[in-house]
């Protein structure tokens, strides 16, 4: 009997720790990329690329491209999806800072122009191109969209890309909302958490509808929802995120008892972490599996990060080890969710990945390692 599923065939990422191998190695070694830096007029903790040139979208994807051969996918059976909250803002900022200079070589602030730029760089001009921007949940929504398109036989392959970089635009914006940690850095779920730390990343995933073989990672389920509550703050009850999780469980045709680990959204803001703990407790009650936020080590990598964190989750499913929630010393949420400052063993083959974004956007993805 055919077991056609949406398989993550290959992936490549760039984070403050570097590529996928280096990122996972550092996460499991309990390292954090967060450090105090003087950037964009603020001297606060950031999680920044080793080389700031990767804030240019072409530089970032050029380095990932070196380890992935995508040319065989440059055809009509492939959909190319670009996911970003704001993407590369260097063109917008360049124009406003230097209005008399030419903008022809600068990345456009229009996201689908950036998508076109990336598709061209990756030599995927003959694919059908879609640009998705669901705020900080963009990457996971792009994966869900790819899954829909593949499972309904619209395409055979989906190349999902994601990018978001630090900029004066976004850093000043989050600062104006008093959302940033100015001293401690991100400490997801910790009782002394005082805001998020901004990060940056790029990522590429090749998803195929295929016979899933042993050890393949498949996108088993996907679901999303809206809190319909507030523009920047999440619902206080966690009901919206819970609805997204239940939608993904229905899509996967499993129950919460099958989940072996949770890759949280865990931004280190007061409200997000409290809300997320409520949602997880509503679902798992006192049987919460090991859970972790990667943002204490990698910062909040925005919409592109929603893709990259999912790709990291796929890799940690192979390793059967959940990274620590860096910055956590004493749990500061009411519900007894199983986050830890140390690595935790994953005793199963399914991981729940959560993302949320401004405007109440919630996304839940379930990955399975085929056994």
């Amino acid at each position, binding site marked *: 009997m055919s077991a056609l599923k949406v398989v993550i065939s290959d992936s490549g990422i760039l984070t403050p720790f570097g590529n996928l191998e280096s990122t996972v190695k550092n996460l499991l070694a309990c390292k954090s990329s967060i450090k105090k830096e003087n950037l964009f007029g603020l001297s606060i903790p950031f999680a920044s690329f080793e080389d700031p040139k990767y804030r240019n979208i072409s530089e970032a994807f050029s380095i990932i491209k070196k380890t992935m051969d995508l040319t065989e996918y440059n055809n*009509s059976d492939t*959909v190319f999806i670009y996911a970003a909250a*704001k993407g590369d803002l260097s*063109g*917008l*900022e360049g*124009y*406003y800072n230097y209005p008399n200079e030419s*903008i022809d070589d600068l990345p*456009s*602030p*229009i*996201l*689908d*122009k950036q*998508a076109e730029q990336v598709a061209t760089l990756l030599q995927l*001009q*003959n*694919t*059908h*191109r*879609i*640009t*998705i*921007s*669901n*705020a900080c949940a963009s990457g996971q*929504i792009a994966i869900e*969209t790819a899954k*829909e*398109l593949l499972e*309904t036989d*619209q*395409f055979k392959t989906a190349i999902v890309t994601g990018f978001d970089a630090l900029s*004066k*635009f976004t850093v*000043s*914006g989050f*600062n*104006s*909302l008093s959302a940033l940690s100015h001293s401690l850095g991100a400490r997801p779920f910790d009782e002394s958490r005082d805001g998020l730390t901004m990060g940056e990343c790029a990522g590429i995933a090749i998803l195929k509808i295929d016979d899933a073989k042993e050890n393949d990672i498949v996108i088993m389920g996907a*679901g*999303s*929802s*809206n*809190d*319909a*509550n*507030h*523009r*920047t703050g999440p619902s206080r009850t966690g009901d*919206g995120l819970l*609805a997204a999780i239940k*939608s993904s469980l229905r*899509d996967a045709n499993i129950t919460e008892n099958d989940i072996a680990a949770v890759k949280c959204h865990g931004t280190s803001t007061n409200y997000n972490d409290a809300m997320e703990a409520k949602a997880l407790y509503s679902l798992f009650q006192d049987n919460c599996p090991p859970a972790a936020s990667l943002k204490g080590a990698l910062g909040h990598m925005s919409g592109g990060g929603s893709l990259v964190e999912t790709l990291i989750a796929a890799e940690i499913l192979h390793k059967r080890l959940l990274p620590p929630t860096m910055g956590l010393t004493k749990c500061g949420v009411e519900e007894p969710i199983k986050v830890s400052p140390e690595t935790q063993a994953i005793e199963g083959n399914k991981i729940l990945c959560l993302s949320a*974004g*401004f*405007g*109440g*956007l919630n996304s839940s993805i379930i990955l399975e390692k085929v056994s």
Partner: protein
Amino acid sequence: MNLYINGFSSITKKGMLSSLKGKIDFLNNETPLTIGRKSVYSKLHTGFGKLNPPDKLAFSAASLILDNIENLDKENTGIVLGTLSGSASTDFRYIESIKEGFPSPAYFQATLPSSPVAEVAILFKLKGPDRIFSSSNGSGIEALNGAIRLLVLNKATSVLVLFINGIDSCDSSNPLLKEVNKEPFAFGLLISTQKNETSLNFTFQSSYGGNNKKVDSEVEVAYFNKLINDLYSTGNFNTSCNNGKLIMNIQIKKES
């Protein structure tokens, strides 16, 4: 699965059409961006006048369908947005506030292509799945196809499709927007698995078998214009539109 059109709206420089309120002419030099709250929404909305162009257009198009709506399964109603210029207008205002030395949180929280979805979801309590397709051409067609997908896959019982261009006239000369359609507009369509007494029957065929040429944005806007006008005048529509490889053919029929 049977699908139905349970509401539609349009806001263009020629005026407004609404399945709820009929034809609404602009008053006193009104434009799509200066319409008054009372023309589109019956309840109080103190922030309406200060909404940024994309949010105002999306909210207005949604209101012309959802104002006082009954029997809508809001827990499972999603929003799929196609946006031509994203949050560009709001981005420019925010970046100006940075240059003035006071980065504005009010502008910043709206500097996302998804911001209009937040406005509509919060005011109308729509808690279903959302998608935001941001593209200077083709996002409306992709949004329509994406909405149908959500319904066919049982992820929602209704989806509000919004296709907007939230661009202000003062931004139209900005060289960063040189390839973007300059006219502000909004189109809305409520597609549902649930029939009511005014429903129009909706059928479609879509495939990704076309050539790779992205639709011209004026062609795409004309398509949506014709769609809403035909629904308003006869309740019937039968036309296809392509975007890149996506070929969509939609048939809408009034039950006799």
